[in-house]
């Protein structure tokens, strides 16, 4: 983690901690906690950062798990983080059980949701455990010319199949272009797509390639003085006000954390920082 990245994560964490909860939905609060956890992990889980995360996590209200309408990855990762620091949360526990029951008999769905299945298990659940993980990647030309949606889908498929880089997968067809695609979307001023592809680079071990480093440096250039990342937003993703800043800021801190600690969502604190 470079000094610049450390400063950027610390400032982003300050902004996320100060983000108004009064008007936030449960989903937004979970997303925000996920961002704070990414900053905490990116900053090597210092005692101060952990204390901040703990304080924020304790404020997460109870909710009806089946009404939760956001990315299951974020909420399961937040639950995983809370468990790893000794916090319990009844709604998150119910949600883990509920998602396990949904996936228990659906091997097809489970085989394409590798990291979700791993998080459910890491959180004490018992989802279906598929023998094989499905991963169908396009060939190199189709990937390069497939457009933004394809780049994001491929990156997410890589994340799912590799469980955030904690399992080996064969992605040789797209690896030669992956850092260049991250770089290319940075040139197009597209934070969301750049982050998604950079995370895929981190999972496949090519996050240190020059093109990926240039894309990462560009991300850091998008930070405002208050810590949020939102100078560049793609037209398709533009929303009004702080919500768009929240999405972009979470995207960036997650990417930076993965580039430095691939798979931090799944690894236990002790495994990642044995000397703590």
């Amino acid at each position: 983690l470079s000094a610049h990245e450390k400063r950027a994560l610390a400032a982003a964490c300050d902004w996320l901690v100060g983000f108004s909860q009064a008007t936030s939905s449960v989903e937004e609060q979970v997303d925000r906690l996920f961002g704070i956890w990414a900053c905490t992990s990116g900053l090597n889980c210092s005692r101060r950062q952990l204390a901040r995360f703990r304080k924020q996590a304790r404020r997460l209200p109870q909710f009806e798990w089946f009404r939760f309408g956001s990315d299951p990855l974020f909420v399961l990762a937040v639950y995983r983080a809370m468990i790893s620091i000794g916090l319990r949360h009844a709604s998150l526990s119910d949600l883990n059980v509920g998602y396990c029951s949904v996936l228990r008999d659906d091997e097809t769905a489970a085989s394409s949701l590798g990291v979700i299945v791993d998080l459910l298990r890491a959180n004490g659940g018992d989802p279906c455990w598929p023998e094989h993980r499905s991963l169908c990647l396009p060939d190199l030309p189709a990937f390069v010319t497939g457009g933004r949606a394809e780049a994001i889908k491929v990156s997410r498929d890589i994340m799912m199949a590799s469980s955030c880089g904690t399992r080996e997968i064969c992605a040789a067809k797209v690896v030669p272009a992956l850092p260049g695609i991250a770089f290319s979307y940075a040139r197009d001023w597209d934070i969301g797509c750049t982050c998604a592809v950079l995370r895929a680079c981190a999972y496949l071990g090519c996050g240190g390639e020059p093109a990926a480093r240039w894309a990462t440096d560009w991300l850091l250039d998008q930070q405002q003085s208050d810590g949020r990342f939102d100078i560049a937003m793609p037209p398709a993703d533009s929303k009004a006000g702080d919500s768009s800043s929240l999405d972009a800021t979470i995207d960036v801190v997650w990417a930076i954390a993965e580039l430095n600690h691939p798979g931090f969502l799944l690894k236990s604190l002790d495994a990642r920082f044995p000397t703590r």
Partner: protein
Amino acid sequence: VSTFSSISSCWDAGFSWVVNHLESFLPADLNSPDQLKEITELSLFYAHVGLWIPAAEKATLAPLGAFLHSFLAKNMQLANQLRRFPSQCNPYLLTYLPLRIAGFRIPGFEEAIGVLNRAGYPEALETMPYRELELQYVAWKAGLRKTPASWGSAYRATVLGRTGSPVYFTLFDVYSVTHTLIYLTGFCGPATVPTGESRRAIAVVEALLVHYWRKPDWDVTAELLINLLALDRYDTQLFEGAVGAIMHAWREDGALPGPHFRKESEADPEHLFRNCYHTTLVGLILCAGYLYRVRLRSDCFVSA
């Protein structure tokens, strides 16, 4: 094998297209240096491709040589313009010097070059660093300079020699990168490139290649692929994939569409020529360069 044969087919089709459009390369106003762009590019193309194609196939270039020589020898107005306006010498020199590379001499231009040299041109011009490299390279190839352009001060003054991250490069900066490499490596190499500069150049060029292939912009993509040829980086999936995409985009009539070409205007010959001639010439240089490098490599294998 498939890349080689598809490149050979595109070369044949593209070269025929150029030969069939020679008249369109001529400037409407000989007194305007701005109108020499097309004929200058044709001349540069003719001279350099002539250095790479096998002796047995050189006769195919003869119509181009005859056309260019006839145009320059007939219109002495151009040589006179060169003498009258030394500060605007670049387009005139870059049209004539490639013919000199191919072995032609036109007395009026030779005299004009003598006048320019005595007056201290082209050294007196303040030129963009990569344009300076271009003139140094062409003058060297044409026998007017003893040494080639080097990885020295002129290179260090270019965008590639000065900057770190290419993420903010404008299209103009990218042209500077491709042209800097083209003139330091003799278009498609083989060239001796300092290791550190080679590694950095490959990283910059490959990142930009993905970007311009994605857009797509076949003009810049082809120039970047020429750079990779020269940097000996053409046995990669990325190179093969991008070359394949260019060959796929090549039109059946032999033209390679430029970034501003509109399919709905293809029936307009003026639109077709203006928006395809440059990209077609660059694509043909890529084809000729690739075939040359592959032949060179197989000759090495045979002699080994």
